[in-house]
């Protein structure tokens, strides 16, 4: 086991899968040089046919990925920033997710879409929105958002081997994060949560970069004597309802932490599910901690204030603990 960065782990996942399966290839804007460094170096090893720089044409590039996938290849399409997926939204919602069902099972779409999700680099509204909630609403699109290098590698490898369309969301803010990455080949199944911290008093459910926010908050809370269980969902669609409901059954309190605008967010989905499924075990109302409901500002101070912070999580936990 070596400690590796998120970027290095993703690089490994891509390279290993491309070595393993000649049908796997990568395309997108500047994947050759690697605007996001996780695709860097692949061109040197695999050449221009398997690491394809494309024009800036998100709709066509995503659609070409779908077309290649239904023709027996296993494309990985890097669309760079999550907000650029908006330009390919039609192909994803209307085609990728639906084709198999719509054509009565005649085909399937083993496509991986990659993008950076959410804020944190003070890049303004056009580069800082979280998009996962949109794709969670679409039937038959899998969505993963691993928070550690280890999970990133294992889940991305699973995504590439998956016979269905998978959206892999990563975060610029996690690019330099390190964790122990096994030397041997491993996979992490899509749909399994990871309990990052056991706790008996409250369940905090989250995903992606806010896992660290939640863990930070849990540490502070622990000093006050409140033991939070922190669940990193890792996969958003399908998601590990079992793990969450089991935890809430134990703690009786639930806080959803989600970097997203509040309405129709992942946090809303988790909170509604918990409220529906384990109502009798709830000792306090479910709580959501999300972005403030305003566009993403540029100023670092404002950006920080919009995003869910440790203080927000702590406040939500306090609220749920104080409830009676």
């Amino acid at each position, binding site marked *: 086991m070596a400690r590796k960065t998120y970027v290095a782990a993703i690089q490994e996942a891509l390279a290993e899968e491309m070595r393993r399966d000649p049908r796997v290839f990568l395309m997108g804007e500047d994947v050759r040089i690697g605007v996001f460094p996780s695709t860097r170096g692949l061109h040197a090893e695999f050449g221009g046919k398997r690491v394809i720089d494309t024009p800036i044409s998100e709709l*066509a590039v995503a659609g070409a990925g779908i077309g290649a996938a239904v023709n027996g290849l296993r494309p990985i399409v890097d669309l760079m920033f999550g907000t650029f997926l908006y330009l390919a939204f039609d192909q994803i919602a209307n085609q990728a997710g639906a084709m198999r069902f719509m054509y009565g099972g005649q085909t399937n779409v083993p496509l991986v879409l990659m993008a950076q999700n959410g804020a944190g680099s003070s890049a303004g509204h056009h580069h800082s929105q979280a998009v996962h909630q949109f794709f969670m609403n679409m039937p038959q699109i899998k969505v993963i958002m691993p928070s550690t290098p280890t999970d990133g590698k294992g889940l991305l490898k699973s995504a590439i081997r998956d016979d269905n369309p998978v959206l892999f969301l990563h975060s610029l803010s996690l690019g330099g994060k390190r964790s122990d990455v096994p030397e041997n080949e491993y996979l992490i199944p899509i749909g399994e949560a990871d309990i990052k911290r056991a706790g008996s008093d409250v369940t905090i459910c989250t995903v992606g970069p806010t896992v660290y926010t939640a863990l930070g908050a849990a540490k502070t809370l622990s000093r006050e004597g409140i033991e939070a269980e922190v669940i990193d969902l890792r996969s958003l669609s399908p998601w590990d309802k079992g793990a969450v409901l089991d935890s809430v059954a134990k703690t009786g309190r639930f806080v959803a932490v989600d970097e997203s605008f509040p309405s129709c967010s992942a946090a809303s989905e988790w909170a509604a599910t918990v409220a529906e499924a384990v109502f009798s075990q709830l000792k306090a109302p479910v709580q959501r901690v999300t972005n403030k409901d305003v566009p993403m500002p540029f100023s670092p101070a404002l950006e920080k204030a919009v995003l869910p912070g440790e203080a927000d999580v702590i406040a939500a936990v306090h609220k749920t603990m104080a409830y009676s």
Partner: protein
Amino acid sequence: MHHQDIAVDVVLDIYQRILRIRRFEEAVGLLFRQGQLPGFVHLYIGEEAVAAGVCAALTDEDTIISTHRGHGHVIAKGGDIKRMMAELFGKATGYCKGKGGSMHIADFDIGMLGAIGIVGGGLPIAVGAGLSAWYSNSNRVSVCFFGDGAANEGSFHESLNLASTLALPVIFVCENNQYGEFTPAQNAMNITDIADRAAGYGIPGLVADGADAFEIYRVTAAAVERARAGAGPTLIEAKTHRRGGHAEGEEAFLAGQTYRDEAETAEAQAKDPLLLLHNYVSENKILPANQLETLDSNITQAVAEAVEAARNSPDPALESLFEDLWL
């Protein structure tokens, strides 16, 4: 119209494709008017020579992608009219088990990769089909059918440019039937020939007479050769006419409004591809009249059987909703 460079069996093959489409579509139109078909239906009558001429120049390995007006493409590629008709009825025996419907028929076994209801939505997918051929060093060619209206979608631009940049074996067949719904093409673009857009991607752009199946066959064959040689995509603009409305039942939308004049309707009638080809085949004595009639009655009979079978087929079971999901 002439077939000097085209073998007689190809001529007959094209003729049969056209006839099969026509009889199928006539039956569909009638069924729709009788209220027997759910959803929307867009007929291909008047445009048959395009699909027939193009598909006659393809092999079974080559693939096509189609549109909301897709029945003709499926039939031209060799689709089974029984399974098509059942799909239009939304029955379990349909191509998509009733899940797709008129705008979403596919037959992956014959390289018919699906009809797509989003205008312009098929072009990127066709590029991907071409990309897979290029990637696998296969000889396959990918064809995309789309309309004049679709040529104004961003996907048209991105797809032609992407295919050109990677020199992919894709043939873009624009069926310019002069209208997107009720909007004349000339009101939606400031050019006469959509083929002229090809220059903006550094690829050949050709105008062809969509009523002349032979011409369509010829330009397609040339584009196929070019594509297989690795020289990249071609844009073919087939000037054509839809004989009927945008969608069946459009009279309700129109509520007395009109959008076409009589001269145009007369022109479309004169350029009816079935009529032209029928006359050509008869005049050139390629097939005697009685054999032509037999052909027609056989096809008409097959369509009637398809309707009967579809009508008698079961609705999809509700459990089928939870099939054909994630593998």
